[in-house]
């Protein structure tokens, strides 16, 4: 095959229309990063830190986890070298983009005592415009879920941050050992809801990217980037990447009548057995990209003249989270684990018309004792006869 000579793409927008696909050479990747910076964005994406791939600021391409991958199983995660120089050759790590859109601690307003009254100042909603570089299919689905909760729910800070964000998706070239997006219908193929989507192509001795334009905002950052129209072999290679990943899912989940299965089995003995292992530590909910539970607290200063309202990540695994009239509703760990899994996989359909799980596997990998919701569902499904009337939710 003779390589097509690179063609500069006119800033006419013609060739950069939504849905158009182009090839970016690996050697031109720094120019792509530079173009994002020039467009005024702060780029955040995968970096290696403390033995894992987390999300942080990307100043140059050497900040990316070049040549790294991860090995994930229930309760363990290890970084490993790949035998190539892939930039995005890993599955998702402990953090998710919610740390930028729904920060773990956020001030909502400040109040000051004035003569005989008080004044409330809302928190400003301005801030940096981020590029999320390397968003996976499951993560796009998770962002869509949190959009439904916070954006549609009228949260001004979230809505402003989200509106400023450009999402550069990456097709997964490898599925993690705890991934099951294929079962959940959220991946591994990136669907239409993104600004740009990259597929990293490593075969045939040529390192390159297929770039798909997902939105006008995505197109607008590409004007100065040397691209050429994607060739048929490149398109074929990109399709093969997604197919290979889809075939190598670490886990699977049977969704058949899952809502009824869980809602109708509140007294299943499996809840007590999982609670013997569960530490009620809340790692699963903190790591989950769709979990949105939080608590708000007023923080007064010592003078009593000023008070701030803060919101922070909270969890259904905390006894204080369900405290009513000084006593928690869910006193026991079985009731908390059941609440978490039943909400995530069953009653979420009633609330949001879909599952609350996108199959990213974080709750499995980052559970210190390796509790695996796919295994818990399978165990309940294996003994579904243990049913009682729906609605028994006693602690």
């Amino acid at each position, binding site marked *: 095959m003779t390589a097509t000579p690179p063609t500069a793409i006119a800033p006419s927008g013609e060739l950069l229309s939504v849905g158009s696909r182009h090839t970016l050479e690996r050697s031109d990747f720094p120019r792509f990063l530079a173009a994002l910076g020039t467009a005024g964005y702060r780029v955040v994406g995968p970096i290696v830190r*403390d033995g894992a791939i*987390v999300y942080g600021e990307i100043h140059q391409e050497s900040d990316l986890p070049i040549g790294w991958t991860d090995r994930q199983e229930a309760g363990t995660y290890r970084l490993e070298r790949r035998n190539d120089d892939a930039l995005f050759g890993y599955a998702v790590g402990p953090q998710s983009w919610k740390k930028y859109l729904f920060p*773990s601690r956020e001030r909502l307003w400040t109040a000051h005592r004035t003569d005989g009254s008080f004044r409330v100042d809302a928190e400003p909603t301005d801030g940096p415009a981020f590029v999320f570089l390397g968003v996976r299919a499951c993560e796009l689905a998770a962002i869509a879920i949190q959009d439904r909760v916070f954006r549609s729910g009228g949260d001004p800070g979230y809505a402003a941050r989200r509106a400023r964000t450009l999402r550069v998706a990456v097709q997964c070239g490898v599925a993690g050992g705890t991934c099951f997006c294929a079962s959940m219908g959220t991946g591994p193929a990136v669907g239409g809801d993104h600004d740009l989507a990259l597929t990293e192509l490593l075969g045939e001795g040529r390192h390159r990217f297929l770039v798909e334009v997902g939105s006008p905002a995505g197109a607008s950052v590409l004007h100065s980037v040397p691209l050429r129209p994607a060739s048929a072999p490149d398109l074929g290679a990109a399709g093969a990447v997604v197919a290979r990943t889809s075939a190598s899912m670490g886990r699977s989940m049977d969704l058949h009548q899952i809502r009824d299965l869980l809602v109708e089995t509140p007294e299943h003995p499996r809840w007590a057995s999982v609670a013997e292992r569960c*530490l009620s530590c809340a790692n699963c909910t903190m790591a989950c990209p769709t979990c949105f539970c939080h608590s708000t607290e007023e923080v007064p200063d010592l003078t009593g003249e000023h008070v701030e309202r803060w919101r922070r990540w909270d969890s259904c695994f*905390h*006894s204080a989270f369900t405290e009513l009239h000084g006593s928690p509703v869910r006193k026991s*760990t079985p009731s908390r684990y059941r609440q978490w899994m039943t909400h995530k996989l069953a009653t979420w359909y009633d609330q949001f018309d879909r599952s609350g799980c996108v199959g990213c596997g974080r709750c499995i990998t980052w*559970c*210190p004792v390796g509790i695996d919701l796919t295994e818990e569902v399978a165990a309940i499904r294996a003994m579904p006869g243990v049913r009682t009337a729906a609605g028994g939710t006693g602690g």
Partner: protein
Amino acid sequence: MTAAARPKLGIFKFASCDGCQLTLLDCEDELLPVADRVEIADFREASSAVLDGPYDLALVEGSITTPGDAERIQAIRANARHLVTIGACATAGGIQALRNFADVREYTRVVYARPEYIRTVATSTAIGDHVPVDFELRGCPIQKGQLLEVITAFLGHRTPNVPTESVCVECKRRGTVCVLVARGTPCLGPVTQAGCGALCPSFDRGCYGCFGPQDSPNAPSLRGKLLELGMDPPAVHRIYRTFNANAPSFRAAAGATDVPAGGGP
């Protein structure tokens, strides 16, 4: 506000290292507003001036280890409207509660030249084992932000906002990578109460349990994980036998008796 109207704060010490009281002195920027709001009536670390009770708020550091202590805490309680214990010694008996699992007379014979002069009791116990306590502030040492929160809360007649969740939550909120999952480092964070801000994991070490058990600790399950990570049973025993050794769930997790090195679980 006139001086007479300010609530009186007393700070009292029992068997302890003074580290928790010193946390108050460590609140450099906040100390002046504190002194402005309360009359510090008895605080021997900071001043030798002592005012008589009754106290609106008594902060009590240290554990009960002598017959004299057991009487003095009754007098302090009788003289205090609110009594808050601060630190692992006052809330769980401290490191000195290791004597609870051994023969204290043997210890005194080893340590002191004239053990007959030592007046002590067989155990080191939490203040709450002797008198009713209004609030227990955990930590070895306590965290200064939480101490200020407790003082502010009592001044404002509200419940202190001191979470009883696990240290893991603090790791995740600050974005620290879990050392247990990513490195296989043994960590007590899942069974330990938050408060330190997940200090040790942020320095790549496991949690040592300074803030005592979280409100729903599952120590037997974590024990299985610690063994799986390669700790031997005596090491698991020792990791629970530190500042909060006498806290009930840590006591149970360690096992009822001391395990000799190399011994069974």
